[in-house]
């Protein structure tokens, strides 16, 4: 090949690199065979502790759920996972159609008009939504109402910093308010007054942004029903492994009038000369590759494959399967809550509030108990005191369809034994 090029050596191709920059070699060990590589990587994996699904009662934004095998069978298809962003539509109809289906599924779940192709995660989805509100209203303040996932709020703050968006915790919206952001159910698992918050936002001319749990929407009124303008959320529960926090998938859906402000990719239908329907990247004029510094967002690579997983998951479940999952999780969590609050010294932290399948409990001697649970292979509840000073001693438990009754029994019996 060098001969064809007409040079003598590799160095002739690297002439533009100043000699002073040239390296002898990388300060890294030599390569390994696949077998040795995998042996070492597996040794690292083995140094982590895997808690079984059924004994995992910790949530806080990442949940154990049943993942149908068909999800992995689809996402592991190289035709999907080794394609790029579908710039050439005619040779990317598989990816484009999958995104189009994802957009529709999310819009349906949220009861809103249009959803995008995906965002990185729930946290950046909240931040992007705030940016939309900021641009839409021309206002510089967003209100975070109630217990929104603390990491989402941190990301929102970091995002807002550059654009001069102030993040206010609670309080009444006013005419400086670009958006009211709430999570429903909130970070503690409690239902909030989504309708009231939406109305208050609208009354102040602000945008209402609902951060939602997609599985809850099989049961709860979707944001579109109570009038929220933008719905965002984290899609991990829709067929994605916990994977130490990522990759998962953020989603965002909005009303028609906000569509031009949406960040990221959007896929729409188009037709060829023979009238065949196909799918294309649409409204690209919002995006960085066309609009550069005037783009609605800088996002380019998003989380397409995770969106595909979510689409397969939702299609597997269908409307009634998804509701069944939500119902089972609800029933089990309520059973667990009833049994926990009967333990001496335990009480629900907000007994007057409703929840679905995650709930806050006041638990005595939290850290000692956590250690004992771990020793028994149980991933116990999540300590809220870590983030909220006022919630010292409060933990949240999560139940889903993977926590069978025997697992709940095991947990409660162990706790009862510890209390006695």
């Amino acid at each position: 090949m060098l001969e064809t090029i007409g040079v003598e050596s590799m160095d002739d191709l690297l002439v533009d690199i100043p000699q002073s920059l040239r390296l002898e070699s990388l300060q890294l060990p030599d390569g390994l065979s696949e077998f040795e590589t995998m042996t070492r990587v597996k040794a690292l994996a083995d140094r982590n502790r895997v808690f079984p699904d059924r004994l995992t009662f910790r949530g806080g934004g990442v949940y154990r759920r049943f993942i149908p095998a068909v999800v992995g069978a689809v996402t592991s298809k190289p035709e999907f996972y080794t394609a790029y962003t579908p710039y050439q539509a005619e040779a990317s109809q598989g990816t484009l159609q999958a995104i189009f289906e994802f957009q529709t599924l999310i819009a349906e779940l949220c009861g809103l008009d249009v959803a995008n192709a995906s965002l990185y995660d729930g946290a950046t989805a909240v931040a992007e939504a705030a940016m939309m509100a900021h641009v839409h209203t021309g206002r510089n303040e967003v209100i975070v109402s109630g217990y929104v996932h603390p990491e989402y709020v941190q990301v929102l703050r970091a995002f807002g910093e550059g654009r001069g968006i102030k993040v206010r915790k609670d309080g009444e919206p006013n005419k400086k308010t670009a958006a009211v952001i709430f999570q429903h159910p909130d970070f503690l698992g409690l239902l909030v007054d989504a309708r009231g918050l939406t109305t208050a936002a609208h009354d102040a001319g602000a945008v209402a942004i609902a951060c939602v749990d997609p599985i809850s929407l099989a049961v709860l009124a979707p944001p579109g029903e109570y009038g929220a303008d933008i719905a965002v959320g984290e899609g991990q529960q829709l067929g994605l492994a916990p994977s130490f926090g990522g990759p998962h998938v953020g989603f965002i859906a909005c009303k028609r009038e906000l569509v031009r402000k949406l960040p990221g990719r959007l896929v729409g239908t188009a037709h060829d000369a023979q009238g065949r329907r196909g799918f294309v990247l649409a409204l690209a004029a919002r995006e960085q590759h066309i609009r550069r510094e005037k783009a609605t967002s800088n996002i380019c690579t998003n989380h397409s494959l995770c969106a595909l997983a979510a689409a397969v998951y939702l299609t597997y479940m269908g409307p009634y399967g998804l509701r069944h999952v939500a119902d089972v999780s609800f029933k089990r969590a309520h059973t667990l809550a009833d049994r926990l609050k009967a333990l001496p010294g335990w009480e629900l932290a907000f007994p007057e509030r409703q929840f679905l399948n995650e709930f806050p409990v006041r638990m005595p001697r939290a850290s000692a108990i956590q250690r004992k649970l771990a020793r028994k292979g149980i991933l116990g509840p999540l300590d809220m005191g870590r983030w909220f000073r006022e919630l010292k001693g409060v933990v949240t438990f999560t139940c889903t369809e993977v926590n069978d009754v025997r697992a709940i029994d095991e947990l409660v019996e162990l706790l009862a034994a510890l209390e006695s």
Partner: protein
Amino acid sequence: MTEPLSFELSRPAVDPPRLPDAEVAGPAPKDVLPADTLRSRPPGLPRLSEAEIMRHYSRMASLNYSISENFYPLGSCTMKYNPVVNEAAAALAGFACLHPYQDEDTVQGALELMWRLEQALCAIVGVDRVTLQPAAGAHGEWTALSMIRAYQHSRGEARTEVLVPDSAHGTNPASAALSGFQVVEVLSGPDGRISLADLESKLSPRTSALMLTNPNTLGLFEREILDIAELVHSTGAMLYYDGANLNAFMGICRPGDMGFDAVHMNLHKTFTTPHGGGGPGAGPVGVKEELVPFLPAPTVERMNGQLTLDYRRPHSIGRVRSFYGNFGMLVRAYTYILAMGGDGLSQASQDAVLSANYLRKLVEGDLEMPHDGPCMHEFVASAHGLLTHHGVRALDIAKALLDRQFYAPTVYFPLVVPEAIMVEPTETESKATLDAFAKAVKDIVTEAKTNPQGLHDEPKHLPVGRLDEVAAARRINSYLVGQSEDPILRWKAPSEGAPKDPC
């Protein structure tokens, strides 16, 4: 053959899948929650059996070109082969099943992997620390600029401008704007490199940073990089490296040594994590000493032999995403680096440069080369002459390549080359593939000169022909302005209660 939408295939006769029963008594949500908190009707999800789902998505998959079946010389995107062992590594239960809020003593292996990956990336790009949090390249750009702003802020400087070359990727100005900077464009010179004179004229005390990729998006190494760095640093600004082109010189040279203060890396380009049809990727950012205090929290630190997540970083810009980044992609990239080793990575970059120059040589008789070689890992050709003389555009060539089983190069980017055709073959393609591609280009150019109309009708052998994006945009607009009820951007049941309604 196209495939109907899942919504169109949906059949009310399909039972939901078998799912675990609650096994406990107790009311369902609808029995206890206030009516106004409840969904009024089930969401319009499709109803298909698992068998139908598998077939639906399998057929869709077969409509895609992908690196696993096709040469995919998409410039700037580094579509190289993704070793399957990466997938096996990420799927290990010891990684895939970890909850991000597990106690640190139960995730030492994961933290060790992150630590080692950080070390390796530091060695490869020549920086002091790396954050693994950003989810993609653009996210990394914004993270880095945020750190630079915070750093300058901490020194009492309020620098408001970021310089971006005219050849830069769109995410560069977009990230700068998102970080609250004014974007100032720097012009390229006739040799395709940044114009030092123009750079000098745009640099000012307001300048926060220059964003640069090197080799630049024309595939050309910025020969004067050391002078550029000196110039930028002399005004107190910082130099940011867009790592999308890192595949050009691993083991050959390092951005850190060139003078870059912050560097993002696209693990989904250089380090073989698969693109997934548009992500997920990962965009770690490496920084020199002075930016270290501003890294997003948490960082991974080694303390008394234990690894720990350090959240107490008072100068940190905060958090740029939830948890610790796209961990699954970090596992893949680490696996790749371990398998390749220092020797393998160096070889990969050299082979990438060799492939690009070889292919460039093969097609230079057919396509104009606006700039002299040698190129680095990619090159940009132009169809400007073909357009002028034969009415054949870069787009036509792209579509004609699709018809010949090749994915198309990037077209119309970078913007500084008219009718740009940006080709990045990567090191994992065989000479036979490069030869075949060059032959296809030759055939297409011949056809352009003899039968240009024929090219306008391509692709003919794909599931659909060219799709009318203009008409689509018009219809979307009608919807957005309320003149139509078909959103185009999603499927909508033909009408309420019609038989197609999936619920």
